[in-house]
Each structure stands twice: as structure tokens, then as C-alpha cells.
């Protein structure tokens, strides 16, 4: 079996879930890596776009921000935020959008905090803020979340609800009036989670080879359903080879 890092496992696991018809709305880092891997390995039809307004981006080099000139050359369209968020809010075009987000905290309903820890007016830790995260969580057809597993990241209640998951449970998004589909998967460095169709709560969907459901639960700050968990397939030689040589050859995201 091929040797691989957890980061590689994470990117490949995410890439495998992308549909060929998806329009991927991308963040930087491992989100971009997973999107490129999906396009090169399983879903050549996907179009990758950035909220800054770059559409169907070609990747000669890994971008380091949502405005990196590397996402500009070769794109089919360079617009601005007004146009890109209208595409996401528009019910016809927004439906096909899959976005991949990160955050500092996540709760059982997939609500995300990327704003502050502690009192938001005088925070113990201040983060960047929503950026487009709240917009995407509110409006996009569906979204996934990339997080590193950890007891301080997977919390019972987020200190600041920046990006809406299923809010406080079944029917809450609809009641609030949110048009987007909400969170679908949480992909971490050790396991993946999905959301129960009834309770809207996160459950363990899969754990990576070498881990156990109990070990995953120990790193989550709330009780999760472990009964549906299966072991994830490790990446193949073929997948790893494409990831390493074609997706991030300069090792800007992958740690060497």
C-alpha cells in the first residue's frame, strides 16, 4: 500500500465526493488542492471559481489568496464580488454550487465561527471575520467544511455564529428564510462527518485507516453518533501520483 500523509488523505477524500456537474466555489489552501484534485482525477467537468469573481480558473500555480494573480490568467471571466455573489444568490445558478469552507469552530449543527472567541466586542481571540463564508453558507446549493479535528474546534456551541449551518436544528434554516441547502459534509484530517436528515446533527460517517470511532469521539467536544461509521478507503497510487505531481508540484499546500 502506498504511503501517504493525512493531508493527502484529506484532499483525496474530499475530491472523491465531487460531482462532475458541480461548480466549486473555492477557498485557498487544502480547499483549492481538493478542487484541483477532483478536476484532474474524478470530475473533469467541474468548473472552479472564486468569490472575488474569477470563473473557470486554470491553475498553473497554487494561489495563496482569493485575489492571487495566479487565479486571473486564463480564467474565462474576471469580474468582481457583486457579480460572483449574485451568481451564488441566484436560485438557478446558486443551486449547482458546491463550496468548501474552513472555520475556527464548528458545532453539532454545522454552524461555523470565523469571527471571535469570547465576547465579540472585546474578544479573547479575534479572527478574520466572515469574508464570504457567511454568504456562501447562507446562499450556496451546498457546502462542505474543512477542519482539523480537535476538542477546541468541535464545540457544543460556537462563540459567534458567523456562517449558518442548520442553526438550532430541523426546520431552522427554512424558518430563518435561508435559501441555500446548508452543510453536507465535514472533512477533517482523521475522519469525515455528515448530517442526519432528521435531527440535522453531525454524525461520524467515516474514519481514516489507523483511527477508530472512539479515538475520533475523544477529539470532538460533543457527543456524536458513531454507529454509521465506516473505514475510509486509503488513496491509491494513481490518486497520490496525480495529487503530488499535477495538483501541487511546488508543495505550496502539501507539506513535504
Amino acid at each position: 500500500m502506498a504511503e501517504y500523509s493525512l493531508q493527502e488523505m484529506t484532499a483525496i477524500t474530499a475530491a472523491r465526493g465531487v460531482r462532475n456537474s458541480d461548480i466549486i466555489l473555492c477557498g485557498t489552501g487544502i480547499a483549492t488542492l481538493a478542487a484541483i484534485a477532483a478536476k484532474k482525477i474524478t470530475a473533469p467537468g467541474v468548473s472552479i471559481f472564486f468569490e472575488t469573481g474569477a470563473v473557470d480558473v486554470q491553475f498553473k500555480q497554487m494561489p495563496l489568496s482569493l485575489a492571487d494573480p495566479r487565479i486571473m490568467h486564463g480564467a474565462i471571466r474576471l469580474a468582481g464580488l457583486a457579480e460572483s455573489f449574485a451568481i451564488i444568490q441566484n436560485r438557478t445558478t446558486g443551486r449547482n454550487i458546491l463550496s468548501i469552507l474552513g472555520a475556527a469552530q464548528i458545532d453539532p449543527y454545522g454552524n461555523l465561527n470565523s469571527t471571535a472567541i469570547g465576547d465579540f466586542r472585546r474578544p479573547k481571540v479575534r479572527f478574520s471575520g466572515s469574508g464570504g463564508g457567511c454568504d456562501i453558507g447562507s446562499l450556496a446549493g451546498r457546502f462542505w467544511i474543512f477542519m482539523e479535528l480537535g476538542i477546541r474546534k468541535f464545540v457544543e456551541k460556537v462563540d459567534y455564529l458567523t456562517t449558518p449551518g442548520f442553526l438550532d436544528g430541523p426546520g431552522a434554516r427554512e424558518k430563518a428564510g435561508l435559501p441555500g441547502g446548508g452543510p453536507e459534509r465535514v472533512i477533517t484530517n482523521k475522519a469525515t462527518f455528515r448530517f442526519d436528515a432528521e435531527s440535522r446533527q453531525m454524525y461520524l460517517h467515516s474514519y481514516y485507516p489507523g483511527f477508530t470511532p472512539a479515538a475520533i469521539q475523544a477529539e470532538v467536544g460533543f457527543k456524536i453518533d458513531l454507529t454509521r461509521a465506516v473505514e475510509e478507503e486509503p488513496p491509491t497510487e494513481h490518486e497520490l501520483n496525480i495529487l503530488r505531481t499535477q495538483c501541487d508540484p511546488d508543495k505550496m499546500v502539501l507539506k513535504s
Partner: protein
Amino acid sequence: MGNAGKVMELSEAVERYVHDGALISFGGFSATQCPLAAVHEIIRQRVRNLHATSCSNGQAIDELIGGGCVERVDIAYGGTGRFAPTCFRFRRSAEKGEIAVEDYTNYQMTLRFMAGAMGVPFLPTYTSLGTDIVNKWGYSEEDRREDPRLPPKKLVLMDNPFNRTEQVDRLVLVPALQPDITILHAQKADRCGNVQLLGLLYSDVEQAKASKNVMITCEQIVETDDLRKDPDRNQILSFQVSAVVEVPWGAYPTALYRYYDYDPWFLREFYPQVAKDDAQWEGYVAKYIHGVKNRAEFLELIGRERLESLRADEEVGYNPRLERR
């Protein structure tokens, strides 16, 4: 205003248009196209109590806050991409309570500028329903009552008045922003203030059109006839612009599409180190901002060789050989 006399030195433009307490907005996005030359001049002139606004801005807002110029910030994201997931002086000042922050989203900030540009008091969106963006207000209702420069509410929820169904159809109305001054760094402008922006536009155009005054810093002042060759690219017009300043490398250390790349040394090694430490930060401001008379002297400190290493390849618009790790 007429077009005569819009071309001026950066120091004069800041003296004329950036006043204590002004509502000021900055173009660019994370590590690209931030008007850093202008930011340094504002710090040098010791402008105080600014109310700064932007969509997603790292370096410009961060240095301005660190320079002691800012009292309030309306923003969606304070970071510099992979270089600074949260920018440093912004974070420090927010945690110490030295600045007040009003959190909006990128779309909301864009809509606020767009409303200002359209001359309407607000625009609606579905974003942020059910979140703390709606529930938690950085500026209290009391602050808002007492200060006529602030909108009386952060935002307002409203049911769609055209709704014919039984389903909930609720919207978030965000208040227009009309900055006293917007500062953008552009690739090209003419002497009258017609502006050509290349590459992604972020919310630069909406910001400019919303603003009472616009200061354009640019790499090159060109002849109007040059701009007439690509009129579809001239997003900002002379009658929207008050000052035009030619400042080569005016966005350094952030990137400018087709002109230069970002500087990984500055953004990854140098800046985080000085910005995380108060004593080192004071040293940086003293040497690199107050210790120089103008942008040219700052660029001398950075070094010609470093700048040349960032020059963009003509075809791709960045430097594909840049060492970024």
C-alpha cells in the same frame, strides 16, 4: 469639479482629502492591489480617528490600524490570505479594545457600497439570516443614536412585500455607505481621473462610485487617447475622481496584476515578525514610515533588487519564477 489640477503629489492628496474622523474606504483584496503607498502617507501625516471600511482587506487596514489612525472598522475579512489568516495589528487592537469592529459579510459590504453608488439608502439580500452577523452589533444602539455619521441600525430584517406565497420570504437590508474618501490603486489613469483597472475588480468600482471623493494612486499616468482604445475597461470616470497620483509600486508588498507579484519575504517573514510584537512594530513604523519622506525613500529601503524580482511576466501577469515558499 473640473479636470484641471487633479494630478498631485501623494502628500498633497492626503492633506486635501483624508481628514481626522473621515469615513474612508480602501480598494484591493487580501494580498492584492491594496493602496499601501497612500496608507503610509496617511500614517506619516498622523491622521486620527478614521472610520475605515473595506470588503476583505489585510495589509492596508492592518498597517493603518497599527499606525494609530483608526477608531472604527466596518469590514468582512481582516486577513492576507495564506500569509496572515487574521492580520496582526487588526487582531491585537480588536482584542485590546482599541478599535471597534462592525462585522458584515463580503456580499453585504459590496451591497453597501453599491447602494451608495446607486444613491439609494439600502439594498436587500438573503445572506446572514439566523446568524450573529444579524444578532450582534459592534457599535451599540446608543453609539448609533449619538453619532449622526453612523447608520441608526447595523441592518434591518424585512419580509418581502411582494411575496404571494405562504412561505417565509425574509430579507436583510444593509445600509448604504457613502465614504468621504475612497482610495484605490490602479494600473493606469489619465490626468483627468479616468481609470483602467486590470484583472479582478473586487468591490473597487462600487467603492469609488459610492464615495464623495476618490483618490486614485496608479502605476502610470497615461494619455486619455490610450484609454480610449479600451473604453470597456475604463471602469471609473473622471467626474468621480478628485485626485490622481502616480506612485510606481504603490501596492507593494501586495500584488498588482500584470505589474508585479506580492513579496513573500515581506508578507511571510518580515511583516508577521514585526507586527506581532509591539516594540518591533514601533521600530517598523519609525524606520519605514516616519523615517522616510515619501514612497521613493521607502522603496530604497526595500531595495531595487527585491522589487525587480517581483516584476510580472507580461503574458501571465505575475512572476512564475518567484520563490514563494
